[in-house]
């Protein structure tokens, strides 16, 4: 096990560095820069800006400076757009928002998805089954940027029950609609996975044995079948996080939430190089670490897997 972790880490760290370098390289290659969109700046002002941000130095110096700061203190520098705010500070203040919605959405998706999927598997080919699978299909098909505004339209702008946007702190009514929107896709996927996994397990020999032994249906389900149904869900965690991430970006945009995703989009639109690199690096690190954790968990749970 330890060897496995070490091996993975050895692959992960260079990967992150490559990711950062690639992003940095892309930004440098691209035409234009962050301070000129449609504007015409006088040469003096432009020169001032270039000097201030060190843009007039040769590329290897800039690269070295950036990477050194990152490797040494994990310092991603100052944002170019949000004057005097360091990238680290921005990430620090926006992370709780994204984390809150993301985690709540995932929890909700797990609870609802596993329950629905289990019921559907147990009551296969009945109304429950068809109903929940239909809803699941809708969940996969309706894009979150359509679902979100429609939820806002119904529950906020027509019924006046919930706020239509903005962050209201934690916890607050403002959380409900963004979390619902974000979790819809995951809920659907998890339901389908649970159902498929459980169905497969329910057909297997050892379940038949358990039933033959006289175990109550409840025990059969919870102690044995569920475990089998959960495996695909656990292995799905990695991609789930990735989907949650991309979902968060849209949801934060729609609901005007001051989270990482929203800042990332703004940074991309503003060509705010340090902020882009900072957020990309942060996301890459998080995802890779989460994947590692998932792998460990899976190894722990599935005795068939050996290292």
């Amino acid at each position, binding site marked *: 096990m330890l060897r496995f972790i070490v091996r993975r880490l050895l692959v992960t760290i260079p990967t992150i560095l490559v990711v950062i370098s690639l992003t940095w390289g892309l930004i440098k290659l691209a035409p234009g820069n962050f301070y000129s*969109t*449609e*504007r*015409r*700046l*006088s040469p003096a*002002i432009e020169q001032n800006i270039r000097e201030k941000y060190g843009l007039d130095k040769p590329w290897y110096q800039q690269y070295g400076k950036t990477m050194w700061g990152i490797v040494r203190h994990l310092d991603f520098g100052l944002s170019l757009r949000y004057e005097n705010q360091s990238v680290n500070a921005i990430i620090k203040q926006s992370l709780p928002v994204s984390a809150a919605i993301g985690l709540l959405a995932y929890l909700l998706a797990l609870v609802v998805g596993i329950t629905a999927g289990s019921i559907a598997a147990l009551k296969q*080919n009945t*109304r429950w089954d*068809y*109903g929940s*699978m*239909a*809803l699941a*299909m*809708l969940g996969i098909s309706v894009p979150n940027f359509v679902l979100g505004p*429609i939820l*806002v339209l119904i529950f*906020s*702008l*027509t019924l*006046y029950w*919930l*706020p*239509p*946007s*903005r*962050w209201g702190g934690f916890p607050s009514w403002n959380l409900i609609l963004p979390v619902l929107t974000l979790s819809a896709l995951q809920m659907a996927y998890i339901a389908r996975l649970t159902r498929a996994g459980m169905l497969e397990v329910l057909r297997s020999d050892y379940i038949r044995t358990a039933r033959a032994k006289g175990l109550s249906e409840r025990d059969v389900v919870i102690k044995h079948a569920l475990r089998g149904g959960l495996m695909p869900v656990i292995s799905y965690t990695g991609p789930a996080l990735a989907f949650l991430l991309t979902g968060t970006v849209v949801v934060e945009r729609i609901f*005007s939430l*001051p989270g990482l995703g929203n800042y990332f989009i703004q940074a991309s639109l503003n060509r705010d190089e340090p902020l882009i690199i900072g957020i990309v690096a942060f996301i890459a690190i998080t995802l890779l670490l989460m994947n590692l954790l998932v792998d460990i968990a899976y190894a722990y749970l599935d005795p068939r897997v050996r290292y």
Partner: protein
Amino acid sequence: MSSGKFKQIVGLVVLASLALSTYSCTVVSSDEEFFGSTTPPKQNIFRYVNGDEPTSLDPVMSNGQPEARLYMALYDGLVEYNPKTLAPEPALAERWHINNDSSEFTFHLRHNGRWSNGDPIDANDFVYSFRRALAKKTASPNASLALYLKYAQAYNEEQVFVRDAKTGQYLLARDFVADLAPDPISTTPIDAAKPEYLPDPNELKGDPDTAFHQQMHTPLRLTLPGDEKARAKRIDADPKLKALVAGKEFVTVTEKDLGVEAVDQYTLRLSLVQQAPFFLGLLAHQVFRLQPQKIVEKYGDAWTQPEHIVTCGAFKVKTWIPYDKIVLERDPMNWDAATVKLDEIHFIPIVDQHTVMNMYKVGELDAVYNHTVPNPWLHVLKYKKDYMDAVEMAIDYLIMNTTKPPLDNVKVRRAFNLAIDKDAYAEWRRVVKPLTAFTPEGMFPGYPQPKGAKFNPAEARRLLGEAGYPVTQNADGSFSCPKFPEDQVEFIYNVQSANKLFAEWYQAQWKQNLGITVGLRAMEWKTFLDSRAKLEYKGLSRAAWGADYMDPFTFLSLFYTGSENGTGWEDPKYVAMLDEANRTLDHKKRYELLAQAEAYMLEQQPIIPIDTPSVNFVKKPYVKGMYPNPASLYPWKYIYIERDQAKWDYSTPSLAAD
């Protein structure tokens, strides 16, 4: 595959789609009176969206609109705006009197003015505040409004007097400055200006004639630039001055020379450098409001932090969460606390119009700031009862560089003006009213406003021909003007949302009516401002001006001497007309003279008037005391939440003075 499953799934999908589509068809046909929820907040809290996050809570530091609204809640001044007419009403000054030529104002302050920490307010606070507002290192962007005070400009620019060390005599301005207006301080006894603010008969005689007062009555002293190089340049340029300056010393103008005096603890006297009958109305502006001397001196720049700040307005700061909201609560120390009905005001900074409108609809906001309603929504929202539709005290116009040909020819300028159909423009924009003069129409009651030229393309073409650029008509009905030097004329504008659309509209008009294609050029804000101010641009540019006080002079003064209006047009005849008007004490006659000046300026056509914006916002019907006055300034202490539905506002509240 059972048909049951199929039917269920398909049925679900079809049902959902139909439901949504039907909903979208019917949602607008519901003829609700108001836009959104009309449930008043349970508590006495007013939630207002203020625009962008304010930059500073220091009343002299910012000239932005979001900040202005905050300052009105937090700081009191000598006078306050009337919520409907914007006329000055007593605030910290109980009553006042003005001398015969509107060059000296004496205020008697009330004795019960208090800061939010309980400290009493007196005339020294005003002296301190005015001095700080004009100090060079404060660098207030609104200092220009206070330049009417004597030696204000000299103090603000750190200029110097020229004094003979032996005799103590100062050189006088009238000896060296051409066209100086006569010293305005009249020597006739001071007299009350407004009958309802009659002072105590004892006070009329009692206002002491202090040494400072006498000094204010001496002729205006000459001031020279503080910077040595600039000063040397100025001296060298004038041989007479050079001769007289020799052997004399330069004395920096200090705050003690500023024309503000605390005659006694509760009497404040202001001396102006020129006649300014409108000055009283100007005093409600935030740059004239109080700053707490002790707190500023103790904490320096950090004095506005919520833990340090001390205010004197109807409300004080409770909490400030950046980018989330600022919460103000009522200040029981305020002299007028009894009038204040709200317990708290929440100022929420949101810039995106659509977010704001959604929050308003749901009932999270009670009112929104001016110009929030998106243009495409107007054909529906305009008919809702909570939509405020009134005139605004601002103008949009085009300026022309009169220093460069071909626009140095007044006929060409007039032609360009006559070729724009202001009515069509107003119809297209929806939130504006057409403007043909320079002051907004109907804004100043009793002002005989000149009409200005109406849209007349034929006349425009004729004028162009007279100027040497004949316009010919083509076979397809369009026009062309071959001789016109199109490369000498372009339209510049700053890059910001709809400016490009407007520019294209003007361009289309000139092309259509004159056959001239005016090039368009977008510029970044600072470059744009520079180009206008330095008269570098070729041709035309857009401009806008919001009034600082309710008097035509606030617009007409744009072409006074020394104003950087971006046209290069300066006419001594016009300036003389304005000066004469300001010297006139008779209100009606003054208005007539101002109107004449405006008419003269319009004929010279340094500008092309385009439109007057309308006020354009929504407020809930239960919000009372908030009136859509032309300046969009609301004295917050008059606002309250009406719980009795019968007393709600079922339309735009009237601005008629009661």
